[in-house]
């Protein structure tokens, strides 16, 4: 019988060797290796403009991955983040273009729509006890359909809303530091990530997010209203998808109702590469950001090296398997 006492004797200081920190280091090291590798392979890679393109490409997937991280830490999964993003973009289009409301109201409507849909998913999961995979799979299809219905299957353009495209494409940083034209989309990604990190690390909602993923029944038996907190987390994740909806609509200056499928898998891939455990209880926003960057760097670098797009997909798939295998092998060793 292996008791906790035995483990304690073997590894008295393992609390210091923080497992999460190690995983983040591993992901970060991989990112650096990729960056160095690509810059040696191609002189075009390390250009400022290319770096900014990578960051811009990360912004939407990064925000979605942050939303997915929250749900995954509870031990759930959210397959609807991609189509929810599109749905929120369409809502923004309806409010701004079709109804001609002011910019701020459109943004608020998109985020509110996201939060509401998250609340629905959360209710399916927490109250109706539908497994998260199924609940959000259903939600994914519902939202894909609704986006097409509401928009009449046609893109909604934001030409009548001046400044909408600047939300993602403009650069507040570039106005202050002209040599560093980092687009606002990237700025928003970092703000979202910082806020999510803060919520996870410093608030009661965050603490329960980890606790639910670690042992939901123990939390319930501690007298905590686990259903309510779980719904809140899904709603928060939905609101973040709303932000992603604004970002993508701004970047394309249009809401494309057919878009969205496949984004959820890229987001989950980023989360997993970043060391968040799919079984819940463990994960960081920083890890997810690094995961999203690794995917963007990989795609960009391979493109700079003129590798065919088909092969880029193959490599991304292989990276996901490698990343999770490395994580599991390490944890098995740690016992």
């Amino acid at each position: 019988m292996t008791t906790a006492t035995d483990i304690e004797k073997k590894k008295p200081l393992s609390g210091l060797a923080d497992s999460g920190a190690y995983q983040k280091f591993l992901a970060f090291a991989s990112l650096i290796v990729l960056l160095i590798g690509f810059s040696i392979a191609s002189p075009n890679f390390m250009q400022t403009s290319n770096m900014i393109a990578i960051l811009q490409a990360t912004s939407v997937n990064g925000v979605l991955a942050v939303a997915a991280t929250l749900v995954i830490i509870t031990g759930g999964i959210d397959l609807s983040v991609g189509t929810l993003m599109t749905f929120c973009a369409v809502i923004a289009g309806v409010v701004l273009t079709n109804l001609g409301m002011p910019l701020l109201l459109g943004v608020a409507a998109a985020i509110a729509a996201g939060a509401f849909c998250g609340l629905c998913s959360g209710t399916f999961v927490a109250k109706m006890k539908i497994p998260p995979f199924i609940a959000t799979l259903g939600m994914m299809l519902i939202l894909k359909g609704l986006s097409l219905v509401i928009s009449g299957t046609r893109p909604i353009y934001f030409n009548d809303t001046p400044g909408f495209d600047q939300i993602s494409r403009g650069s507040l940083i570039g106005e202050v530091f002209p040599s560093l034209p980092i687009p606002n989309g990237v700025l928003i990604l970092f703000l979202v990530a910082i806020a999510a990190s803060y919520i996870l690390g410093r608030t009661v909602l965050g603490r329960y997010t980890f606790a639910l993923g670690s042992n939901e029944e123990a939390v319930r038996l501690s007298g905590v209203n686990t259903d309510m907190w779980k719904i809140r987390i899904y709603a928060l994740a939905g609101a973040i998808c709303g932000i992603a909806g604004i970002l993508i609509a701004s970047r394309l200056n249009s809401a494309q109702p057919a878009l969205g499928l496949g984004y959820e898998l890229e987001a989950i891939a980023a989360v997993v590469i970043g060391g968040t455990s799919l079984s819940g209880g463990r994960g960081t926003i920083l890890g997810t950001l690094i995961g999203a960057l690794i995917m963007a760097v990989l795609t960009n670098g391979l493109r700079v090296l003129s590798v065919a797009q088909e092969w880029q997909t193959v490599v991304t798939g292989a990276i996901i398997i490698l990343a999770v295998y490395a994580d599991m092998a390490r944890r098995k060793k740690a016992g």
Partner: protein
Amino acid sequence: MSKLVDMTGIDKFFPGVHALKSVQFDLDPGEVHALMGENGAGKSTLMKILSGIYQRDGGTLMIEGQEVSPKSPREAQDLGIGIIHQELSLMNDLTVAQNIFIGREPRKSFGRLDEATLNAQTAEIFASMNLNLDPKALVGSLTIAKQQMVEIAKALSFRSKVLIMDEPTAALNDAEIAELFVIIRRLKAEGVGLVYISHKMDELKQISDRVTVMRDGEYVGTVVAAETPISQIIAMMVGREVKEEPLDVPDLGDAEMSLQVNGLSRGKEIQDVSFSVQKGEILGLAGLMGAGRTEVARAIFGADPKDSGEIQVHGRVTSITSPTDAVKAGIGYLSEDRKHFGLATGMNVRDNIALASMDLFTGAGGVLNDGKISNSAKTYIKQLGIRTPSDVQEVRLLSGGNQQKVVIAKWLLRDCDILIFDEPTRGIDVGAKSEIYKLLEELAGQGKTVIVISSELPEIMRLSHRIAVMCEGRLTGILPGGKDTTQEDIMHLATQRAAAMQVTGTVQ
């Protein structure tokens, strides 16, 4: 005629524990030999050695006069030893026949399965058992009793000469038990030897030829079932010397009734349970496994639903439908299974201590005050003597005793004054046990109300001011604590089955 099974001088060591001390056991063909003892007496360990799940560290094991050492359940099966575990290990979504022949399915060419032969062979086995069961039925659609028959058929399909049954009647009703006994008698007549592990005294009298009693990993004795009164078997089971000095039961006088339970019921598991506990009292809840003690605790705590029953906290009727309600009413529950129900093992000590009281540490906008959490946690780490390098150590790295203290700290921090401890010392070593006992006594001394559920009689005797005993979902009696009550008294109540108390009629 040589014995079917002959085990002598069997020793087994687990890290830090001498689990079996020179134990003997033997079995004749066509015999039902009951194996009895309290939880933890070593019955299951002994049978796991016989069935190849564990290997012995000493002694001899002879099957039909040949010394053998089965290294795996598969080897034991080849020697003709089958075991039916307490928890059935069947695949619910496969058919009866598919279950029985799993791993050795009859095949046709190119690896195709031969379902016809499979079903025919299964029907043959059922015919030999005189059992009317469709080989093509899904196991999940059968009653527990029928599933048990399937397990028996599976064991017989290996041409077992020895069949070990671990608490086969635990989940069965009286009609189903009768059905099982018919099968057992038929197997007996065919010369199969059966080892029968059970806590139910009246069943042993009905079905077994001999009874062997074990206690604390030691062999106590073997008696002929028909000639031995139940009281003697109970005495053999509990006959350990009481080392502790008798408990001094404090006089609580007319101290407030902090918890009253009236007519608590749910299906068969909890039947009309009523009791009350005073402020400062330790109430022991005794009974054998499956008596419904944990179910009662979880129903009081709102973790599981109840059909009926009223709960009064501090004299006021309180509606408790969820753990949240219970915690609000000041009731804390410490589960027997800390890892699954008590702790978020991946989280650190201080978050686990604060888990039920996050609102105390939450400021504006839901922001947590980690400094305050840390201070509170450190206070309890010191007060309860939790041995941990720091308050941010992950709890899974603590020993069982220290994990238990973390759960206790969680409820103390929540300021719960009614604490239900379910098997508080399970998986905790002896030294830490006495620390937990002292802690429980201190809590009662401070005016907390304590309910202790335990399967270990010495633990119940050591702690309880009063002892409530349960059997099969009913509260069969409440005994005073201290020297006036013996372990035999408790065991009598714990085995007082409803069927045994009623006149068994002949009306169908």
